[in-house]
């Protein structure tokens, strides 16, 4: 989604904010409803009295949550949250025109995101080996859906970050216009923030 950068410089916007940034905020607002719905579905399924009544749902969630590897996920959560710091440093570096440092910190974000995703892949395969698939029970369905949906966001974020690194070699973001770094940063921080909610609700409670 690139638009005419010159047009924006020539005609200041009504609010003074970059239109691309306003669009990103609107998109992230929409994303809150995506994740909000998924989290609510998960919580509703956890407390699904209909299933218990019919003899299905009881203890499914307790048993499922018992399978979670809290130590591993706490570590990958720490790594993911730390990546937000690297993201902040990357943007700061681009703003200071230290392009190389900016690229370095972006690659740190990519690496940390990859570690997080790797942990998730390991967790998913371990679960499948233990016999928990999306179709096993309501916990499996809710867990794979919510965590997988978030994981897909992290994966898209990594691709986007790599694209930003690539375009930094093509001469973008060298001047005052660091919007590309800022956009992916907004997205990345949002995805991190959502993980805080998911980690708390699935792994801790």
């Amino acid at each position, binding site marked *: 989604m690139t638009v005419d950068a010159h047009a924006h410089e020539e005609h200041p916007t009504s609010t003074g904010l970059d239109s691309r940034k306003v669009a990103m905020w609107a998109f992230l607002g*929409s994303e809150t409803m995506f994740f909000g719905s998924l989290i609510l579905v998960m919580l509703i399924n956890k407390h699904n009295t209909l299933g218990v009544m019919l003899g299905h749902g009881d203890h499914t969630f307790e048993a499922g949550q018992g399978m979670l590897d809290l130590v591993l996920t706490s570590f990958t959560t720490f790594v993911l949250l730390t990546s937000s710091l690297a993201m902040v440093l990357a943007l700061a570096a681009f703003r200071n025109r230290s392009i190389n440092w900016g690229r370095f910190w972006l690659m740190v974000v990519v690496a940390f995101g990859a570690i997080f995703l790797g942990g998730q892949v390991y967790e998913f395969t371990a679960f499948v080996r233990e016999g928990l698939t999306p179709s096993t029970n309501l916990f499996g369905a809710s867990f794979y859906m919510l965590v997988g949906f978030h994981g897909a966001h992290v994966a898209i974020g990594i691709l986007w970050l790599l694209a930003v690194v690539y375009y930094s070699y093509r001469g973008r973001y060298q001047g005052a216009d660091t919007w590309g770094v800022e956009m992916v940063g907004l997205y990345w921080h949002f995805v991190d923030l959502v993980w805080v909610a998911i980690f708390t609700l699935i792994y801790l409670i």
Partner: protein
Amino acid sequence: MATTTVSVRPNTYAGTAWSWITTVDHKRIAVLYFVTSLAFFALGGAEALLIRLQLSRPELDLVHPDRFAELFTMHGTTMVFLALMPLSAAFFNLLVPLMIGARDVAFPRLNALSYWVYLFGGIFLNISFIAGGAPAMGWFGYAPLTATEFADTHAVDFWAFGLQILGVSSILASINFIVTIINMRAPGMTFNRMPMFVWMTLITGFLIIFAFPVITIGLVLLLFDRYLGTSFFLYQGGGDPVLWQHLFWVFGHPEVYILILPAMGIVSDVLPTFSRKPLFGYAVVAYSGAAIALVGFGVWTHHMFTVGLGPVADTAFAISTMAVAVPTGVKIFNWIATLWGGSISLRTPMLFAIGFIAMFILGGLTGVSLGSPPVDTQVQDTYYVVAHLHYVLFGGTIFGLFAGIYFWFPKMTGRMLNEGWGKVHFWLMMIGFNLAFGPQHQLGIDGMPRRIHTYGADMGWDAWNLMSTVGAWLIGLSMLIFAINAIRSLRSGRDSGPDPWDGGTLEWSMSSPPPVYNFAEVPVVDDRYPVWKEKHGGGHTGAAVAEPPAAETAHDDDEPHIHMPNPSYWPVLVAAGMVITACGLIFHQVFLLIGALIFGISLIGWIEEPPG
């Protein structure tokens, strides 16, 4: 062609088919939206006429029961997602940049993408008719009717993927218009001076970006149930069918406000023009629109009163539902007060706008009655509900949208729609509409369930049903008259000039159709009705006239050199890739690969394309 033309007609729409496929001009995209949504409107209307034919007499067997179920499902889905929403989007495209003094929307290529995704999604949804049967579970797709056990063809998959695709289109378009309205207003065009249609577009945009994700998640869960064997909505696996109802209506109720608010915006701009006075209570009308949207997120279980959620939930949602009537009533009183004391001229747009108010009041009143759980329990799933929703969405939305079509057709095309035939259209539609849906109130109270294929001769429903069918076909006739009128007017209609109605908002300050760049010079706005102020002075607000002219028009013969965004073929390719990928999930995996490839390559092409 009109030989008496005095004004020079801008070549806004000139060019080859390729120029239309690659266009990023909001006015051309508006034309595409108008044509496509009216075509789908005709398709949905034809489905309705078949439904009414089958129900015209008791125990008829003109339409097979399975086909009948497909018809009512596709009628609802088509009208909501393929006709009314995109018709509103056509007005957003045509009017928002003109009304706020912008040269285009914030993201022109994204705007083109929204249109192509909508077109391909609509075609995709309707392919189901020839690919093993259309969806037949009703437009709100209640579980477990959508479960593989009860729907083992791909009909539900077409429906679910189709709505996902259309959701992408709606969310992208809404983000675009939200940003355009927030960020692209001309100097002086404060929020407090925006035309009411722009206000309602902004509110509708927020409704869409917050409501559509919920149905998206619902559909993702449904597709997981169907493709991966999960049991989100299947009680056999511990899931809960009622969860679908919650997810659907958390989206579905805001959706009805998504359908009505743009029409309310249109009416709020048509009424002042033909009453020769400004909108009464401008701020209250704007804020009550926002209030409707806000409360609209907290009323969804009034669609579920008979589920058995308990007296506390039913009471709470009954109260919130009735509360929606307050801002809605406020709007109606403001419209009536706008008429009050005005010098009213009953041109065709005005007739439709007044028809909107009258019919919408009737639909609103039955809505309040349905908000009461005991009443709702009595008439749940009967024709009373069908009558109510058509009074709101036809009597409301469609009357409002036709007011807009007659009002802005001259602005879009440079030609007037024939006034006499317009009035015939209005009266025929008014009579047909009330004949079609008025009796359905009585049928519902008598207990006739919706969605039944036929009914017994001893039920005493014959006369009402026959009336309803006659009314429906009268509506069809009125639409035929409109179509002929539109085609004839396009060819040989009277030249409208820039300002045929003596309008007050910015779009009337430029030629019809508007030049490609809309405004030769970006206007400076200092009034809610800047063009009235320019023409008649500030009398209506008591303000001084000494201000500089509010709007600049392109009177110059030589074209000003204004750089507009280049056309692009990437949006149509990205949209095609998206829909072909969806085909891959239904037909054959090879489409998945082809679609993903097209999507990926076009996305890179899009990013690589030099902007502007």
